[in-house]
């Protein structure tokens, strides 16, 4: 496989949930390409479809959710064309995921060692116990947890330590891509920062790609090179972390979020919320889904869904950036 083959290619992906009141589309025609060794940040408010998209990539969607359109390729392979056995081997080996809640990702009645061993041996049955042990110890060193905790049960560890173990398991088999879904959201900032520093370090040596999901702009800007902004199931802007600040060309939603966040160091700027509330997917607004909350909305926004308009870096999906739009 040559260098340029994307690690992850998502084309026109749509995912729906079946609910008592009918289908709701949680991911609506998403496109995303992740290259080798790249870190892409995916930001969006709760309910915007980030986790749904991640689960779709891992082919871990539950019963009531279905991929209703599009294509997902990981390392050039269509994830949905794999049979059960191939998929089982592909997962963790090639693509891995760190889930939003670490506790539920670990088995409470199994020691850390056993959980790491099981993951490795189910994919590498030929490895000797000594080799597996060596790898387990290596992983513990990588995430900076004392090796003695291999013998610990999850409840004997702090939240931060558990999350580190989950990360260790995710990278145990040298995957090419790791999806991290809010890996540190439940943790204190100091613990969060030390885990993120470790992720960056490990990523440099192990050279995998990361799809880093978070609702925190400043965090994503620090972790990722490119950033995708999701609203109501669509990636409405693709930009890079350098550009992710006020004063640059952005989608009105991105702009709104940037204005809404108190900055640690800036002097006495007044923050402003975005009016209205995140949309109910069952009653998705017509045209541009953001239009009821958008201060710049025009007549056509109510009926016509905007298309992505290419920018020097990435794209913005908003009528303002079309040829006849005011910022085009």
């Amino acid at each position, binding site marked *: 496989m040559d260098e340029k083959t994307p690690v992850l290619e998502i084309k026109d992906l749509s995912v729906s949930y079946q609910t008592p009141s009918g289908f709701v589309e949680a991911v609506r025609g998403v496109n995303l390409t992740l290259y080798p060794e790249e870190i892409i940040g995916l930001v969006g*408010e*709760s*309910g915007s479809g980030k986790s749904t998209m991640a689960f779709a990539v891992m082919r871990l969607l539950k019963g009531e959710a279905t991929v209703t359109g599009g294509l997902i390729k990981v390392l050039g392979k269509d994830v949905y064309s794999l049979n059960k056995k191939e998929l089982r081997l592909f997962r963790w080996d090639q693509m891995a995921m760190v889930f939003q809640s670490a506790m539920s990702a670990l088995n409470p009645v199994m020691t850390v060692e056993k959980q790491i061993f099981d993951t490795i041996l189910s994919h590498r049955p030929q490895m000797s116990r000594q080799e597996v042990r060596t790898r387990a110890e290596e992983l513990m060193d990588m995430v900076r947890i004392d090796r003695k905790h291999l013998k610990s049960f999850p409840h004997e560890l*702090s939240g*931060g330590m558990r999350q580190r173990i989950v990360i260790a398991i995710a990278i145990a088999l040298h995957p090419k891509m790791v999806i991290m879904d809010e890996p540190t959201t439940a943790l*204190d*900032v*100091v*613990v*969060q*920062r*030390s885990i993120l*520093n470790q992720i960056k370090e490990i990523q440099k040596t192990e050279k995998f790609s990361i799809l880093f999901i978070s*609702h*925190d*702009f*400043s*965090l994503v*800007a*620090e972790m990722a090179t490119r950033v995708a902004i999701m609203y109501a199931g669509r990636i409405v802007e693709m930009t890079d972390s350098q550009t992710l600040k006020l004063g640059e060309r952005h989608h009105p939603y991105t702009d*709104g*979020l940037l*204005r*809404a*966040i*108190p*900055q*640690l*160091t800036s*002097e006495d700027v*007044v*923050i*402003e*919320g*975005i009016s209205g*509330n*995140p949309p109910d997917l069952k009653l998705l607004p017509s045209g541009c889904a953001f239009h009821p909350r958008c201060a710049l909305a025009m007549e056509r926004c109510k009926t016509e869904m905007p298309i992505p308009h290419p920018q020097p870096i990435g794209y913005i999906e908003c009528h303002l950036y079309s040829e006849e739009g005011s910022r085009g």
Partner: protein
Amino acid sequence: MADSEALVKVENLVVRFPITDNSRRTFIRPVDQVSFEIRAGEVLALVGESGSGKSTIGKALLRILEPSEGSIVVGNKDITHIRRRELVEYRKLAQMIFQDPFGSLNPVKTIEQHLAFPIRKHRLASSDSTSNLINELLARVGLTPVEETRLKFPHELSGGQRQRVAIARALAVNPKFLVADEPISMLDVSIRAGILRLMTQLREDFNLAFLYITHDLASARYFGNRIMVLYGGRIMETSASSELIRKPLHPYTRLLLAATPGSAMKGALPETSNKPPNLLEGRTGCPFADRCPHATDLCRDQVPELTEFEAGHLVACHYTNQLAEDNIRS
């Protein structure tokens, strides 16, 4: 405002909880000798990691729990150990807003009923004017059109709207002091700012005093006039918000700042371990000593007292003078 009397005066507050440690009955002290004041119209932001004692302080101030030692005076009345009637009376002065706006509302009651309850309980309005007062409260927190909002149930509102209901309910008694415990941390990013702005507005309009509990330094700086940093149940540092961010003196404050997304400090964190603080009664020394890169035997032996380093800037560290010089050099 600067020289006005403090509305809230907390002195040497201690809260102990019984625990069993290695099958031995003993106590932890998640709040240990904490003293501070809040003036009318002032927002004191209380920051610190999970388990540092923030909510416990908030609950003690509201007398949801009773302090073990020390005293709390609010509006010239000592409320440290008051009971029944006096407590009910105190709730007209001080109210609390919680993190989870859903958990704090009753799912089978309309918004109107939520607001009518405190009004009746405290006889704040005649039955004729109750309805007007409800409208007024809803309008004040931006839940318009009020006629529509009144008849809704909590599940029909978004998280941000629910938090506004909780605020309206707290305002019903016309309090002077609000404890807001992580009021925005469970809300969507796009609506957090609205709640912060609402609280800022209320502070200005009613000269309300706030204890704003948060783990986020950026919002503490935004909403707080002063910031107080807590670690292991003790105050590590307190000063005017911008001063604290610009010139942090305590090693823990520096660690917290370095770790906050968006801070200018990059690279390795200034800490030596990530052991949680010992909260057991009878611990010795500085609670931060296990993690502090500057710790000495003195630190492990003696608790540093909170002392004024500069006007209004208090620090609890044996080596404040040396660290302040570092700050100037770096």
